[in-house]
């Protein structure tokens, strides 16, 4: 356990960017309640609203933005308050959507983890993630938007893994979480194309979300988004190398043929349970995961891999890379992989 930690679990959370930390510390200094009418309150309000418009610009989002405590809350808010009832969700959604889904239809995925856009031509609210958190698979969002719209439905996109990395889709409601793109844990947003799509509840955020706004974390979220995504090219190269070596060592890439985010990959090591792999990697100071952080340790088979019909689903681990990941990190992981696979 004396080895320096190697963190390859950036899909669970990724370090706070220095610019975000600076913004947060600045936010601590303007600590007044943004709903207060006095000067410090108005200053906090101005900072909050400025951050809101910067976030809109960084995401190229022309609609409204409601700040929440994270993506889970944003998704819960969207589903509970949308003017259309939830009609369907993809079978590979995060639990934050699935557990609200009740009787809503489940949209199946193919072996690559992709939803058929034609199946999304439904009236009512349809929820599909942009990027899957376990496999990195990118859904055919443009085609899904077109299908939902043609049927008069509304589209809710869980963009927790994709916001700040991919273009913002032209959906009706989009949930995101700051700590997946270098912002702090504890803040997220629901993007809303038009206020008329939601029923208000009263309170802050124009009556759509009660609770004192978390100004420091919102400022940090804006700074993190503005840090940009140039680093993804490097991530793509690192991932290519990682996958070549994994395949060479007898490993298998999940959804290899699907469009995938360059930072998240799922890999099967035949004959070794994911749990055994995790213990070995952890023992060498390497942080990876089996499926999502939330379900790790639960030993349940991933519903995502199950929906894809993945063979040996309980032998699959997730490796996710971040801005700071280096070629040396990948080399170290590959060496460890070979050791775990060979032993």
């Amino acid at each position, binding site marked *: 356990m004396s080895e320096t930690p190697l963190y390859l679990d950036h899909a*669970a959370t990724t370090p706070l960017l220095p610019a975000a930390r600076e913004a947060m510390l600045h936010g601590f200094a303007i600590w007044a309640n943004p709903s207060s009418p006095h000067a410090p309150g108005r200053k906090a309000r101005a900072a909050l609203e400025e951050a809101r418009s910067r976030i809109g610009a960084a995401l190229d989002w022309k609609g409204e933005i409601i700040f929440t405590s994270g993506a889970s809350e944003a998704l819960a808010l969207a589903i509970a308050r949308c003017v259309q009832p939830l009609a369907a969700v993809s079978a590979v959604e995060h639990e934050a959507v699935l557990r609200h889904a009740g009787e809503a239809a489940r949209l199946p995925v193919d072996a690559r983890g992709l939803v058929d856009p034609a199946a999304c031509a439904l009236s009512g609210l349809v929820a599909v993630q942009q990027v899957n958190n376990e496999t990195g698979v990118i859904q055919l969002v443009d085609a899904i938007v077109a299908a939902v719209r043609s049927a008069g439905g509304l589209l809710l996109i869980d963009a927790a893994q994709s916001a700040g990395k991919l273009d913002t889709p032209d959906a009706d409601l989009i949930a995101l979480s700051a700590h997946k793109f270098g912002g702090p844990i504890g803040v997220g947003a629901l993007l809303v194309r038009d206020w008329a799509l939601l029923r208000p509840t009263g309170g802050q955020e124009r009556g759509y979300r009660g609770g004192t706004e978390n100004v420091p974390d919102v400022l940090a979220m804006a700074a993190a988004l503005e840090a940009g995504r140039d680093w993804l090219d490097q991530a793509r190269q690192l991932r290519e190398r990682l996958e070549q070596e994994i395949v060479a060592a007898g490993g298998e890439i999940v959804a290899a043929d699907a469009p995938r985010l360059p930072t998240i990959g799922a890999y099967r090591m035949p004959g070794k349970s994911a749990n055994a792999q995790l213990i070995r990697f952890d023992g060498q100071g390497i942080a990876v995961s089996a499926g999502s952080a939330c379900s790790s340790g639960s030993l349940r088979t991933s519903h995502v891999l199950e929906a894809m019909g993945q063979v040996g689903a309980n032998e699959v681990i997730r490796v996710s890379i971040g801005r700071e990941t280096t070629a040396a990190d990948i080399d170290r992981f590959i060496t460890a992989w070979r050791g775990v696979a060979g032993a």
Partner: protein
Amino acid sequence: MTYLDYQATTPLAAEARQAMLRWLAEDGFANPHSAHAMGRAAKAAVEVAREQVAALFPPGGKVIFTGSATEAINLAIQGRAYGAIAVSAIEHAAVRDTARAVGSYHELPVGPDGLVDPQVALPDGLGLVAVMQVNNEIGTIQPVAHLAERAHQVGALFLCDAVQGAGKLAAPASADLIAVSAHKLYGPKGIGALWIRDGVELSPLIHGGGQESGLRSGTLSPALCAGFGAAVQVALARQEEDAAHVSGLWDAARDELARWTLNGSETERWKGNLNLRLNGLDVARLMSECRRVMFSAGSACASGSGRPSHVLRALGLSDNEARSSIRLGFGRYTTREELIEACRAIDAAAKTQGV
């Protein structure tokens, strides 16, 4: 500039800020729900914070971290089917609006002193009684222990919004559900908690990863939790000292503003809240003439809405009386000198209005 709006939010305590920095550092990140070593370290920090926050509450329950007290209150009220709900007439909108939204709603009146009568008649079929510990606008301390007992006698649960009292007063020992917020006790914004007595079952409003025993999904922030925990620790350690300081401030402000009328009970109150009125006062003008003193009219959430405060109306004040009221809130970091100076500025500005 003198900040006299401690009910809206409090400055972040240096100790809380310090505790947060450890988890905002470059090597301080991790998802506390990850199973690997870094995740376990983050989880340990969350659990230490949970223990620290738990010290606010009676034994025999669990602390669920939420994004705010508003969310905690929503979880408490919407997390279960209660049947009829009774709430005091001076509850915060987080309780009032939520209780109204879920169904059969009954209001418990308060007297001119801003207190619910412990013997107040309770309607039949009650499933929940919600009364706050300390009112956010007028500072009155409600007889919550007695009201919790009354609720239990009729088979109802008791929810206490302890946002303004937590860390200052002992928690109501007989409540079943208690909601608190970090940023009202010198902790960070973006985190609150719901304390749930063992045996009280709730269903989640936010589903997902199943964090917080399945009751509240969403990745927890080790930084926010640690800041909350540290703030509570300081508040409890300094409880008597803070109360004595605030009591001294109260006496000084009352002396300076002796000609103003106090809203709410003089004795049953948290003394960091001074809600006063002066007949004929134009509060908007006063605020613009006292730009260096930060105070409010009513609660932050409602201020600017132009609506007269429902709390002041519940005391029996006329709209005009309510509109001529101001709230001065002070606390740990307020000095006697700045408070006296601010009170003199306010009183002088009022006099120029001829009131």
